[in-house]
């Protein structure tokens, strides 16, 4: 290689390297107001989603809609989940976006709303009677307006292997904290990993925190206080809730920070672990990995010292659908989104997509799904760090994930982790008294 060709090669490589990063950014905002279409005769509405696995289910659901709305065709177009945010941002900024995009919830949708990409739905869609925590997923904290219709409620709870429990002399799901730890001890003595946690993946740890310790910090009551500024994450109850990890660490797999969440799921489905703290969305995966498993769910009892001795089911909403502000068929799109708030649609989501619908009053054929939905209905609590502390960077969930890893590695105490979360979110979070 001569010096000259070497020089040119290096320059080119350096350029293309940054191009890879630079090209990820979206194009600037160009106003392309809609034109054409929507004259009432034949309308094709496109719906974008990140649920590739649900394509058949959605096609069935939209067939039902098409049957009732003559001249309307709904095209469901799913994209790879990990690339969806980028694809949607580009689609909505340009002129070839979907009419009805599936959007993220709570803080994650705020940048899309700030881009003025979505149509406010206040007065157009009626969500009265819905769970407040669910409706908040569709609202902007910046202007308080409603921008989407929530699709599903996700709940987090403890999955357990009923036959493994019985085999080790535990006849029923524990209802007190003492029962819960006693069950852990029995399983440990029987050479079974009591709780399969995958602490290598930090995103799973805030979920595990909610499953194991939501009552310890006070769930919904704490949410009100921390949002109004009456308390903060350094509150002794919140610190104690993080410390639950220290108490229960002996029940986790060995070298837990090296165990990926997929490893934890495998431990559980291979019946080497008896419990798996996870979301309602994990059910399908767990069943598929071992169809013969005797799967059950329970709410982890309130840890000793909790402000209120009552188990809860933490949850949140996601998979919301919105209307693209640039859609040339706004009315037809609004009609579709309105339909998505009906019980008819909710029931189909439950039956076809097999998720807990966000619409109240839906019934479930699957007994586990029904139990999870009922538990949330009876004793709901918000997955606080997701519902209220993902509106800025660093997010509450990121801070908790990293902090719990440090706690499990022994490099930080629960109080230090809580202080980090408090300091981190305070860089962007302002309480509203």
């Amino acid at each position, binding site marked *: 290689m001569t010096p000259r060709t070497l020089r040119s090669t290096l320059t080119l490589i350096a350029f293309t390297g940054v191009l890879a*990063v630079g090209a990820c950014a979206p194009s600037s905002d160009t106003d392309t107001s809609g034109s054409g279409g929507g004259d009432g005769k034949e309308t094709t509405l496109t719906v974008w989603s990140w649920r590739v696995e649900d394509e058949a289910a959605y096609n069935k659901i939209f067939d039902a809609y098409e049957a009732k709305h003559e001249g309307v065709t709904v095209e469901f177009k799913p994209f790879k989940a990990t690339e969806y945010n980028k694809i949607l941002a580009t689609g909505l900024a340009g002129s070839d976006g979907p009419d009805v995009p599936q959007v993220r919830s709570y803080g994650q949708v705020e940048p899309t709303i700030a881009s003025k990409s979505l149509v406010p739905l206040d007065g157009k869609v009626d969500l009265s009677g819905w769970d407040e925590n669910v409706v908040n997923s569709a609202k902007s904290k910046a202007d308080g307006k409603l921008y989407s219709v929530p699709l599903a409620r996700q709940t987090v709870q403890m999955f357990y292997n009923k036959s493994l429990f019985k085999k080790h002399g535990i006849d029923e799901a524990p209802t007190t904290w003492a029962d819960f730890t006693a069950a852990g001890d029995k399983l440990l003595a029987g050479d079974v990993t009591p709780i399969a946690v995958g602490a290598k993946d930090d995103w799973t740890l805030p979920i595990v925190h909610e499953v194991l310790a939501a009552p310890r910090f006070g769930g919904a009551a704490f949410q009100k206080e921390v949002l109004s500024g009456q308390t903060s994450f350094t509150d002794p109850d919140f610190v104690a809730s993080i410390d639950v990890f220290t108490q229960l660490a002996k029940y986790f797999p060995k070298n837990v920070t090296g165990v990926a969440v997929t490893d934890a799921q495998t431990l559980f489905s291979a019946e080497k672990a008896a419990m798996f703290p996870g979301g309602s969305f994990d059910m399908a995966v767990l069943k598929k990995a071992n169809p013969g498993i005797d799967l059950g769910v329970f709410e982890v009892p309130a840890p000793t010292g909790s402000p209120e001795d009552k188990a809860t089911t933490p949850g949140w909403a996601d998979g919301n659908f919105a209307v693209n502000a640039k859609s040339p068929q706004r009315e037809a799109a609004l009609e579709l989104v309105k339909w998505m708030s009906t019980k008819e649609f909710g029931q189909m989501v439950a039956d076809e997509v097999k998720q807990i619908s966000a619409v109240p009053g839906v019934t479930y054929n699957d007994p586990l799904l029904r139990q999870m939905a009922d538990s949330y209905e009876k004793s709901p609590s918000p997955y606080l760090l997701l519902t209220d502390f993902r509106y800025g960077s660093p997010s509450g969930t990121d801070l908790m994930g990293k902090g719990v890893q440090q706690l499990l590695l022994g490099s930080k105490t629960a109080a230090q982790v809580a202080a980090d979360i408090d300091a981190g979110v305070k860089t962007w979070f302002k309480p509203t008294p």
Partner: protein
Amino acid sequence: MKTRTGLAFLAPALILFGVFVLYPMLTAFSYAFYEWQGTSRQGFAGLSNFSALVNRAPFKTDLPRALLHNVLFFLGTMLVQNTIGLTVATLLHRRARTRRMLQTLYAMPYLVSPIVIGYLWTLLLSPTFGPVNQLLTKIGLEQFALPWLGDPKTALWVVILVSVWQWVGFPVLLYGAALGGVPEELTEAARVDGASHGQVFRRITFPLLVPAIGTVSVLTFIFAMEAFALPFAFGGSTGNPAGSTDFVSLLFYRSAFDSGAVDAIGTSSALATVLFLIIFGGAMAATKVLRRHERRMAS
């Protein structure tokens, strides 16, 4: 006339370069100087996005740490990959018959996507099911059956060593080619004068390899500063565990696409610009030094 004809021939390439390289790059730069509300551009922001990288969480803490990891990745790769690469290339150079086959074998892993390599090694090193730790336990080396990717003390080095394992074929090929270019009469003359193998390598082969070493170093620098796919496969976008495998590109990725901050485009573009300047500046400086060395050798 001559220039015009030349330009006409250059035009297709220049247009492609302009549209697909220069234009996106310059727009990405310009994003860093504006305020953003989601994807809609607001007023001119001056350097405030850049100052956010120094003054605001999470950049204040994460950027220096990520940058340090990039530098360690570069130094580790330089040291291990280049040493092994040069050694292997020198040894292969003497084996005329099997050289081609072995070179191909060494280069095999880099034909596989880093994402696949990352997941593969994650499985191999898993403390629950991974065969590496099982093997270590079985042969009585239980004290070395560590949670390789679960401990911040080892995780970064695993990433570096796996990257070395994947890419070692690259310096082997480059050094192999450079060794082929070392005039045999020089080494032969030295041998006739009684120089040992070591002396020939130190006094003749190595100095003549310096341009190739320089090229490899610059390419390694660019590669290390841009590291994304392998760390992503190992530790996700947050550099698990506890940020110990975090890199600047990962920080860019999560602040651009995973954060709930409405001004994400501004700050992440500023970060991309800074990364570009580091890579570009570093590569340019190194090339300059290299050219000076080459000129000295030629004269």
